[in-house]
């Protein structure tokens, strides 16, 4: 096995890792603020991919506006879901099991709606950037699409971190996550903070779906595996920590890709979940684990 082959495999792992990171960051953000696990998160990833497919393939809209339309539609869907279903739940206060039941139902609803509307045939989106880039005299090659995934993910994650750490909205999100009652006493409209958080979280999943759609085919069930993997990355990195989800995503992505190289394709999930199990033994709160803050 050559060094360049290994480098390429690690690079593939990083690409995969960034897509997990985007999905996981959304899940973690949501857990950090609303203390709920969104079991329909993977389906927002799927809906994002379908919106992009609709725009680009069916609507024949050029790629960049098509992607933007996809993200906007997904964000609008999240807004609708939040206001119609999650908000009434938040109003009840301490919600126990209900978010799991709600989001599981939403997941089934979204998958079957996609099945009814778009059919069960797998759909394809052309590569957004159909070129191959070579580095180090051709020893490392990467397709433009994969490079684009890395770049877009990095930009989106950076943007997210700036929003959370540096802006007034970010302070409101963190304050609401850490002490909702007192944040509201200071004038924060915690209801809108929850809505904004849900929309950001879902849009992150949709962006991941849109970016990965050209590599994997678009189908109603594409979100299920991503959902579980994204959650695994969150738990590995520390549920509630956005940085943790990113690190967890990269670890699992690279580990999967390496296990395909050294073992076989069938082993990748085994290795990924093995890392998770070991982590739960060693440090159940995850790498960046703390009191469930953002």
């Amino acid at each position: 096995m050559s060094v360049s082959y290994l480098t390429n495999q690690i690079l593939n792992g990083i690409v995969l890792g960034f897509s997990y990171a985007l999905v996981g960051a959304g899940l973690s953000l949501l857990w950090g603020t609303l203390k709920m696990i969104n079991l329909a998160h993977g389906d927002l990833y799927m809906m994002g991919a379908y919106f992009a497919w609709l725009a680009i393939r069916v609507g024949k809209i050029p790629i960049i506006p098509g992607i933007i339309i996809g993200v906007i539609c997904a964000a609008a869907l999240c807004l609708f879901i939040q206001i119609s279903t999650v908000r009434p739940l938040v109003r009840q206060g301490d919600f126990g099991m209900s978010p799991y039941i709600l989001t599981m139902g939403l997941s089934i609803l979204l998958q079957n709606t996609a099945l009814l509307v778009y059919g069960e045939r797998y759909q394809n989106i052309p590569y957004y950037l159909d070129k191959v880039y070579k580095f180090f005299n051709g020893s490392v090659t990467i397709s433009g699409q994969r490079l684009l995934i890395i770049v877009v993910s990095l930009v989106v994650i950076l943007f997210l971190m700036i929003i959370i750490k540096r802006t007034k909205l970010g302070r409101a999100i963190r304050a609401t996550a850490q002490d909702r009652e007192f944040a509201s006493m200071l004038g924060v409209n915690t209801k809108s903070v929850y809505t904004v958080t849900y929309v950001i979280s879902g849009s992150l999943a949709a962006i991941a779906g849109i970016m990965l759609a050209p590599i994997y085919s678009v189908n109603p069930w594409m979100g299920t595996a991503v959902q579980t993997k994204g959650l695994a990355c969150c738990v590995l990195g520390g549920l509630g920590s956005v940085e943790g989800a990113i690190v967890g995503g990269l670890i699992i992505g690279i580990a999967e890709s390496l296990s395909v190289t050294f073992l076989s394709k069938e082993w990748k999930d085994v290795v990924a979940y093995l890392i998770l199990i070991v982590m739960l033994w060693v440090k159940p709160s995850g790498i960046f684990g703390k009191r469930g803050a953002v």
Partner: protein
Amino acid sequence: MLKVKSINAFYGDIQILHNVSLEVGKGEIVTLLGSNGAGKTTTIKAICNLNPAKSGEILFLDKHIEKTPSYKFPHLGISLVPEGRHLFPDMSVKDNLLMGAYGQNDKSAINSALEEVYDIFPRLKERSSQQAGTLSGGEQQMCAIGRGLMIHPMLMILDEPSLGLAPVIVDKIFDALKLLQTRDNVTFLLIEQNAQLALECSNRAYVMENGSIVIEGKAEEMLSSKEVQKAYLGL
């Protein structure tokens, strides 16, 4: 400035406050004394609409505020520094202070308020990028008070600011309150268990027992009153 007229408050079906009336005049420091479970915090929660009173009137600057939601209190000019401080533990000291000015958009006003808070509590400036949860108890209390000062409040309500703090730190905090009263004309409604200290720096005081006000009067008179001495000052 603040007038509370015979409020009755409940937790569930149990009545906690019975016809509590009190008044805080402009520029005063007024202390609410009483043992644990006397209803001091409940009174404050009723005033701030966190546990609304079932009946009675609450007026701030002669306007009814019984129905004003608690998140509008900063706009009115009322700051609450709650029991247990309620800082955001994983946010930096500076971010905590900035949260105090959440409702404001004027950046230069926010920055000058921040500088003023750092002036009063220089310790907070040293620790501005540290997470609030890692501060010592006294520093946390300073941070909580500082956060309350960010809106230049007319009235500041403090719930047990001395709880669990070393006497030296408590003195520092009370010195700061007196400075704010004399220099910036801030009005204070104070809940304290440390009756001696609270009375020494207050203008007037109320003593609560079983959800009712039992004694009210000038702080200095209370300090010399046999009744208060026996019950609260341990003399």
